[in-house]
């Protein structure tokens, strides 16, 4: 009985040792990865910060104004060029343009089967 216990305990010990070693090894690997990722995140974040700084340097209104004055023929907007949305006139009624470049020529070209200007049923179905 006790011999069986011994054998079991020794087996458990060996198994536990192997398992602990594996866990330890894994955790070391993971910790290294975490440290690496952390360093990477830090580096990325620093890079983002410096890019953002560069961006707002490029976005600086003084610089933009200088560039606009040098390269664009635009003038500052006048007060009278602004207006409110509710003062916009109503949208003009929508006129559906007929197909083709020249609508009249298209009607004539369709042939003599249309006596009036009405559109045949087949054409409407298309």
């Amino acid at each position, binding site marked *: 009985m006790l011999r069986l216990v011994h054998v079991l305990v020794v087996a458990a010990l060996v198994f536990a040792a192997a398992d602990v070693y594996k866990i330890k090894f894994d955790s070391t690997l993971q910790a290294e990865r975490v440290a690496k990722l952390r360093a990477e995140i830090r580096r990325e974040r620093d890079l983002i*910060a410096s890019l953002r*700084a560069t961006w*707002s340097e490029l976005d*600086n209104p003084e610089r933009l*104004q200088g560039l606009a004055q040098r390269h664009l023929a635009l003038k500052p907007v006048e007060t009278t060029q602004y207006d409110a949305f509710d003062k916009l006139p109503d949208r003009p009624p929508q006129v559906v343009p007929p197909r083709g470049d020249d609508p009249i020529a298209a009607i004539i070209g369709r042939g003599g089967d249309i006596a009036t200007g009405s559109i045949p049923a087949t054409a409407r179905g298309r």
Partner: protein
Amino acid sequence: MQSAPSPEATPAPLPRRPRLLHRLLYGRNVDRGAKAKARVGLAIVAFAAVYAVIAVRLVALAVIPDPHGARRGAAQDAVATARPDIQDRNGEILATDVKAPSLFAEARKIVDVDEAVELLSATLPDIDAAEARERLVSKRGFVWLKREITPKQQLEVHRLGIPSLGFLDENKRVYPNGREVSHVIGHVNIDNQGIAGMERWLDTHGLAALHMAGLATDRLQRPVELALDVRVQHALRDELIVALDKFKAKATAGLVTDVRTGEIVAMVSVPDYDPNNPREALDPTRINRLTTGVYEMGSTFKALTLAMALDSGKVSLASTFDARVPLRFGKFDIHDFHPQNRVLTVPEIFTYSSNIGAARMALAVGVEQHKAFLRKLGQLDRLRTELPESAEPLLPKRWGELNTITIAFGHGLSVAPLQSVMAVGALVNGGRMIPPTFLKRSEEEARALAVQVIKPETSDKMRYLMRLNAEKGTATKADVKGYYVGGKTGTSDKIVGGRYSKTKVLTTFMAIMPADKPRYLLLIMVDEPQATADTHGFTTSGWNAVPVAGKVIARIAPILGLEPRFDLPPADKLILAAGKDAR
């Protein structure tokens, strides 16, 4: 082992001699089998206990995060001086941290100081060789050699292969918008500690403590949002620089504030400095004239005098004051700049900017009440904002009738321009005085802070007067069509050598827009403008500060989201009548 048989063996009667030995060794009548079993049991319990401890420790390790792992990455920037970003109201970055390597040495371990200094000064030309040598021979454990070098320099120094040199990544503060925001943001020193402006404010509000504790390592601190709008700031600064040039002035300054919340949307004082090069800030001509300087605000102060008179109930808009002859007080004569030599009504006093009228009005109210009113409007005490820089107003030592007369038209009392902006803001926004702030503030927060200083009816009248001034007074050049601008000009003689100078003046202009329901207040200040051909030899406010304000308004109003409205009725119909209807 003959004398110790296995425990399983039954205690057979032993021969005589071994029994004696057994008794000597183990004692009389001891069952060795049972004893052995108990011992094995004890060993099992002991080992189980040890394993239990290990198991518990494992669980604890798994549950509680490892503090060393977190620190491992942070070790390389031991100098924990990260600062939060500063952004404008739209999220544009005004100040941020970037990492820059700094060169240090472990002086104790250095082998050949001369060689090291020689190599270093060849690689880093701007290093001070004598100072570097002194530091290296000091035998200390850690000395800085050069702060904030470029990555290229870092590589070159690395290639020199001098032992005991090392690099630390430090946070370096950069201001991408440079000069545009210099006076508001302030700047930091080489150790990333704020020493001026909002940077200093950050330090006094907890950041310094974080730095001391070494906790400010990460840039995950929440950014600080200012009330500033960088676009408005730029437009204002651009026009002020043009004005500085055009009028050959000593300085120009401007400020835009939201009268409903007290937020400062833009604040510029040129000449300014580049916060990336803080040495410039030491030049006394580059101070922030709006908060650190005190000035006699001139006729702009008449707005306060009129508001006081109207609010006291002793004077109405229809009251008249005699301005036929200069006001004589003791040996002093008070003249008008645009003498009308007749009896003037209250609106006329405002639009002609009559010194005599304002003085008589203040006398009608009384010296003590005048003083009390100005104190209520915060003109007699130092105004404190988030900015560490502030200036105490200069009061007369004894405040008699003569002082009241001169202060009525803005001479004899020097205040910081920001202070007068706060007061005029209160005069036009319905009578609520709100302390100015550089941080974002909602209207509700402002309402909680506001103090009612004048009646809302008086505020209506003040807006009417200011609008009238833009329609037919001294401020017509700032009346940008569509924005219903109102304003009050001011020109004060500067004191040179204890006397009022005839040629050196400070001109100011306070504009409100739109005058019927003001949202923004603009202050333009020109220090010692010179007359030009355009101004027909005049140096008064109407010829310099006012047109500048007009240009600024035309540029900033669309940015501020003010809707242009045309064909509005004149001031007496729109503001006065509307004010009466509302009540």
